[in-house]
Structure formats: structure tokens, C-alpha cells
């Protein structure tokens, strides 16, 4: 790997990572479920690109696989699945967050700062895209925030998936060659199964409660 080329790749990676973060923030403030799903697909696409760039730079076959799986799973399959679920169950489109947009933005900003603080010790590592680690952690934290700032079951799934995206970004960024293939495969299939299980549950909840509002899910106390 030569210097300028790696620098260029690094630039791209940083840019794409920043894009992921922007999408995350957009997800935090916007209110329509289907848009959220599309934003998630876009975020996953950016993740795929980062993986692909790194794979190209390092010539790492495993990473190509990972990128491919992400593309298939998170960009195409899961958004399709979730969108279908939303349409089939005629879930009300409004997201209804607990906190309003400005507050959400404020918190997300604070979490971003925190992400950078946590990641700072590792920026000195001489690795491709190591500066994306801060983004990854920020994605994780804001995704976390999204999870408890949402009232609908399906949006929680979405937030969970964005957390997953953050983790994968960290994996790509930190491990430079990606994880071993068997792990990648395992993670991928687990994720798919997880979303399907979540889907089943959402479906059953919808059937039983006639709503996917999480406020109804608070009978178990003490």
C-alpha cells in the first residue's frame, strides 16, 4: 500500500463515516417510519462502501465478503423486510419520540463529543480509517439514544440496527482486515435471524395488542 493512495482512501473513508453520522442525526430528528428505514438503508450502503474501500486497499478477500453481505443484508433485504412489515401491519407512520427534536439534537451532540473523547486514545494508531472509530462509537451511543427515545416497536428495531452499524463500522475501522470470515458469517446470519425474530414478535404484538406502541408493554412490574 503506497502513501498517497492510502491517504486518499483514508479521506474517503472519513468522508463516508461522516456521512453515516449525519444520517444517524437525521434519523434522530425525522418523524416518518418509512423514511427512517430508507435512511438506514443509506447508512448501511455507506458502511458497505467503507468496507469495500478498505478491502480494496488491503486487498482483503474476507472484507469483500463482509461488504457483500452487508450490501445484501442491510441495504437490500432488511429495509425491504421492515418496509413490508410496516405496510402490511398498517402501522401509523408517525414516530412519536419521547423527546422533541431540539432536545434530541442536543443530546446527540453531547454523545458525539463523548464518542470522540472515548475514541481519542486510539486515533494515534497507524491504521487505515482509525479516525472512524469516533464515528463508530458515536453511532453506537446515538443509536442507543434512539432506542429509548422511540415509542414504537419497529423503530426500536431500526435503532438497534443502527447500533449494529456502528459496531460493524468499528470492526472495519479497527481490525483493518475485518473479522475472520467465520465470525462475519456468523454475525450476519445472527443479525438476519434476529431481525426475523423481532419481526415475528412485532407481528404477534400487533396481533395481540392491536398496536405496536411500547407504552402498552408495561404490565410487568416490580
Amino acid at each position, binding site marked *: 500500500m503506497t502513501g498517497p493512495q492510502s491517504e486518499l482512501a483514508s479521506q474517503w473513508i472519513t468522508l463516508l463515516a461522516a456521512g453515516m453520522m449525519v444520517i444517524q442525526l437525521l434519523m434522530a430528528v425525522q418523524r416518518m417510519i418509512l423514511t427512517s428505514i430508507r435512511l438506514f438503508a443509506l447508512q448501511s450502503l455507506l458502511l458497505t462502501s467503507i468496507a469495500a474501500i478498505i478491502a480494496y486497499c488491503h486487498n482483503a478477500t474476507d472484507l469483500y465478503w463482509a461488504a457483500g453481505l452487508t450490501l445484501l443484508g442491510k441495504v437490500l433485504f432488511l429495509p425491504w423486510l421492515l418496509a413490508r412489515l410496516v405496510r402490511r401491519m398498517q402501522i401509523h407512520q408517525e414516530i412519536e419520540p419521547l423527546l422533541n427534536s431540539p432536545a434530541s439534537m442536543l443530546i446527540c451532540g453531547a454523545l458525539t463529543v*463523548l464518542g470522540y473523547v472515548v475514541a481519542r486514545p486510539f486515533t494515534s494508531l497507524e491504521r487505515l480509517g482509525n479516525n472512524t472509530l469516533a464515528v463508530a462509537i458515536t453511532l453506537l451511543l446515538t443509536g*442507543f439514544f434512539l432506542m*429509548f427515545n422511540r415509542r414504537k416497536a419497529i423503530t426500536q428495531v431500526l435503532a438497534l440496527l443502527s447500533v449494529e452499524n456502528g459496531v460493524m463500522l468499528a470492526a472495519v475501522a479497527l481490525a483493518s482486515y475485518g473479522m475472520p470470515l467465520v465470525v462475519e458469517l456468523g454475525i450476519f446470519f445472527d443479525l438476519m435471524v434476529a431481525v426475523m425474530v423481532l419481526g415475528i414478535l412485532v407481528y404477534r404484538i400487533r396481533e395481540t395488542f392491536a398496536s405496536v406502541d*411500547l*407504552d402498552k408493554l*408495561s404490565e410487568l*412490574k416490580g
Partner: protein
Amino acid sequence: MTRFFSSGFLLQAALLAYAAGIVGSLLALRREKAAGHLGFGAAILGGLCGTASAVLALVGGAQITPPAFELWRSGVPYLRLTVQLDALGAFFLLVVSAVAIASSLYSLGYARGFYGRKNVGILGAFYNALLLAMTLVFCSSNAFFFLISWELMALTGYCLVSFEHEKAEARDAGVLFFIMSHLGTGGVLLGFLLLFRASGDFGFEGFRAAAGGMSAGARNAAFVLFLFGFGMKAGIVPLHVWLAEAHPVAPSNASALLSGVLIKTGVYGLLRVLFDVLGEPPNWWGVTVLTLGTISAVLGVLYALMEHDLKRLLAYHSIENIGIILIGLGAALMFLHTHHPLLATLALIAGLYHTLNHAVFKALLFLGAGAVLHATGTRNMEKMGGLIKRMPRTALCFLVGAVAISALPPLNGFISEWLTYQSLLQGFTTTNSLVRILFPLSGAMLALTGALAAACFVKAFGITFLAQPRSEPAARAHEAPGTMLAGMGLLVAACFFLGLFPATFLKLLDPVTAQLTGLQLSSQLGLAHGLVLGNTLPEGGTVSTLGMALMGVCLLPAPWVLWLGFGRRARTRIGPTWDCGLLGLTPAMEYTATGFSKPIRMIFKALFRPRREVQREYDYSPYFAKTLRFESHIEEAFVTRLYRPFKGAVLRFSRRLRALQAGSIQAYLIYIFITLLVLLLFAL
């Protein structure tokens, strides 16, 4: 052949007998009669073997090599299930086994009351298990094993207290008993762990060696923990609140074991750690024990006086007597501190003697109360009366117990209190510091205790057995069956023996004191061939209950001489009691138990804080009431001021904490989130 009469073999036999009793009663679960006979028969056998083993070990003297054997090997680190009987253990084994014989004999008859109502097999199993656990407590040479036996004892005790679990009071009392007992175990456990930290092993031998090397702070901490833990079991004030709840609700044969022996395990524990293990005590240990003992004695008897539930009354007296035992122990600790081993031994003997005495007469009284309960179906003294005519033998047994517990000569309670007084009096000159004033003051309180106990038992015996029956069941009461009487009779005999021949018995205490303080006093205490009890001083006070008794018998003809002289023609008539000219006395006109204790209630009003409600309805003048409703209620200040608020606070806190788990997944996520943030910042 000698092998069969060795202490160790008999101990094994006793353990086996109890175990067989458990198994036997469980196997015969469906046949009540067989279960009772198997279970309690095995317990009698175990008690006999245990008594023989203990006596053999104690008669063997200080030089006996303690028999030791391991039950089996457990893989748990530091746990060695070694059964070893030393002199101290043997003495307490004697206490438990002797009471076990009488109580089990009694149980044979008493269990009949449960036929068709409760399962006797289960009772027998728990009963034997309690005996087994107590026996193991006294002969485990390893603190880990000790704790196991200790907890088993609490568990079986709980099962017995809650045996009649259909009654809410039995359930509540059981829970209270077990919880407090377990908290005490926590204290004991921590104390042992402190010792373990110093010695690296759980053997009492190791503790003994290591205690010298412990820092003063650690030893003091261990003392406080042990005092809390063992004191909880012994029921010293203010840790006593469970006792008066738990002992009355258990079946009476079990109450006898609980009150007679189980609380003595606390005394055993204190003796074991304070005298055997922890080494020379600082002064404040003794002062604390003595003070607590005095307070327990006085408060115990005062609360007992306010009871009109016969078994609760007896239970409160257990608190009193534990206090008396602790007075002896505390004095002994103070003497050890000032290096007066002779006096320490004397005080210790007083404590030990009272331990056995209390076991004997308290078991007797509980068995008597059980017989009354058996006959009348109630524990409320206000509903009794006149039972001496219906159950004369039981009444006689109860009377002996009452005289003994009131520390009246010539029975055994008097002897041990006399020894306690002697040691306290001599203690005054052992030191020049101001704490010496504690000795006579504690003696004076002991006197108050004794007198109040006498008042209490006048009430207990008088209201229960004398005068006219106050209720229908009391009027229809019947004498207890033979086995029950035989059980009580054994204890009556023991009261007399221990009261009349103290010097003979004191020989058995020699190995115990030799182990704990290095001295043997029986030859110094027993004067004139053991007929007179001295106090080790050459010109000191002496007492001979046997002499008194014989003298009394000799003087008995004196009144008859007078009859012959003056009253030959006088006749005796049976007539009605004087009724102030009314139309005959009714039981409602008799003095009640509540009325009997009213003067004391008024005098100690500040302590009891009685709540009374009087509702009067009248037409013209309040002096001519149409109806009168009187309600008086006493609750212990410890319960109302200490335990209940504490319990309330804990429950309130817990309920408030439940809001954390309110069902909102968002909140749960926030918990995790906050944890994550905190940890991330921590890890940076």
C-alpha cells in the same frame, strides 16, 4: 466390652439413634402411633446414650483424651466433619441429653393430642433432627461444621415453631425466629471468619492458637460479633423479641427443648469463644456481658409478669434466666481480666450450674404447661383455674418447677443463684476501679429479679391451678397420661437432686472449669463430705439445702405437738369461702392474672406504657355502670420503638425501589446506557 461404655461410642450411638428416629418416623409417616413410638423412642434412646456419654466424659476428669471421629469426608475446602467431645461440649451434651430423655418420654403421651390432626411422623422427624443438630453443635470441633449444625438447628427449630402452621401466629413467629436467628448466625459467621483470617483454618484448636496474635481491634470486633450472634440465639435483651413469639407456639415438647436447651447453645457459643478461644478479655467485655445480663434478667421477668399466656410467660422467663447465666459469665470475664482465676471459676460454675438448672426446670414448666394446654386447649391463664383438683400430679410437678425457677430453697435454682451472689460479692474487692460497683448493683437487680420471678410464679401457679375454674374447658380438664407425668417426674427428680446434692454434681463441672480457667473447685466448694456448699473462702458463707430440708422434716412434728397440747377437741369443717354476704362466689369474682400483676404494671408504668381503654355506659352516675368494657394492652417498647419502625422502613424502602422496575423498556435502556457511560468514563 469397655468399648461399648466409652464416651465416644455412646456419642456415636446417640447420633445414630437420633438419625434412626428421623428415618423411623418418616418411614412410619402413615401410621401415627408407630411413628410416634419409633420417633420418640429413638429420641429417648439417644438421650440415654448422650447422657451416658457426657457423664462418662465428665467423670473421666480433665485427663480424658477427647474421643474424636470424622463423620465422612466432604470435598468442600476447610470443611471437616469431625465430632469431638471436650469437657465443655460434654457438659452441654449432658444438658441436651438429659432434657431429651424427659421430654421424649413426655412426647410419647403428648403426641396423642395430634392424632388425626397433625402428622406425628413429621413431628417426630423434626424433633429428632433438632436433637441431632443440637448434639452436633456441642461436639463439633470445627467452626465450619459448627455453623452447619447451628443452621440445621435453626432450620429444625423453625420447622417445630411453625409445626402448627395452620395458625397465623405460628407462621409469623417461625419466620421471625428464623430471620433473627439467621441474622445472629451472620454475626457468628463473621466472627469466625475474623478468626479464620488469623488462623487460616476453621478448627477451634487453630483459633485458640491464632487468637493471641490478633490485633486488639480484631478481637474486639470478634467479641461484638459473637455477642450479637450468640446473644441473638440466647435471647438477651434487646435481641430477644423472637423468643417470646416462637417458644409458645411450638408443640410443648418442642418448647421444652427450645427454651430449655436451644437458647443454651448461645451460652455454649459464648463460653466457647470468650473463654476457650479468644484468650484474656479486656475489661469492657465482662462489663458489657454483665450489664446485658442484668438488663435481660430484669426486663425478662418484668415482661413475663405482664403475660397471661402461660407459655409466653415461660418464654419471657427464659430471657430472665439467660440474663442470670450471663451475669455469671460476665463476672467471670471481669475476674479473668483482673487475674482472679479462682473467682472467675466460681462465677463460671454459677453460670454453668444455672444453665443446667434452667434447662431442667424450664423444660419441666413447659411440659407442665403443655399438659395444661393438652387438657384445657388454651394457653390463656384467664381461662384456667382449679386445675389442681383435676390434674393434681401435673400441678405438683408444675409447683416444683415454679419453686425451683423462683430460686427458693431447697431446690436447684436457689443453689445457682446463691453461687452467683457469692461470686458477685467477692468480686467487689478484686478491683479498685469504679466498675466494681457493678457487682453489688447487679446483685441487687438479681434480687429484684428473683423476687419478681417469685411473684410471677405465684401468679402462674395460683391463677392456673388454684381456686375455681374460670372456664368450661378448665372445669372439664383431665389428668395427663402416664408417660407425660413420667417425663415431668424425671425432671422433678432432677430439680431435687440438683438442689439437694450440689456438691456431688459440682464434681462433674471440674473438667469443664479445668478446660476454661485451669482450676477445679469442687473439692473447695463441697464441705463436710459434700453436704454443705461453701464459697471457697475459709470463713465465707455456707449453705446446705439438704441440711435445711432435713431440719425442716425434723421440725415438722412441732406443730403437731401444739395440736396435741391445745387443740385436741378442735374440728375441721368444709365451708364456703366468705363472700361478703353476697349470694355465693362466682369465678368471675376471682382475682385475674391481669389483676394480679396490676400493682407491678402501675409501678413500672414508664417501662410498660400500657394502653388501656375503658368504655362505660351508665344512666345516672358513673359509679353505677350498665356495661363496662375494659381493654388493656401492653407492647414491648423494643418492638414498638425499634423493630417495627425498622421493619416499616425496610418495607417502605423496598416498595419505593420497585419503581425502578416500572415496566418501561425505555427506562431499562436508560439504565444500561447510563451504566455504559459511567463505565466508559471510568475506563478512560
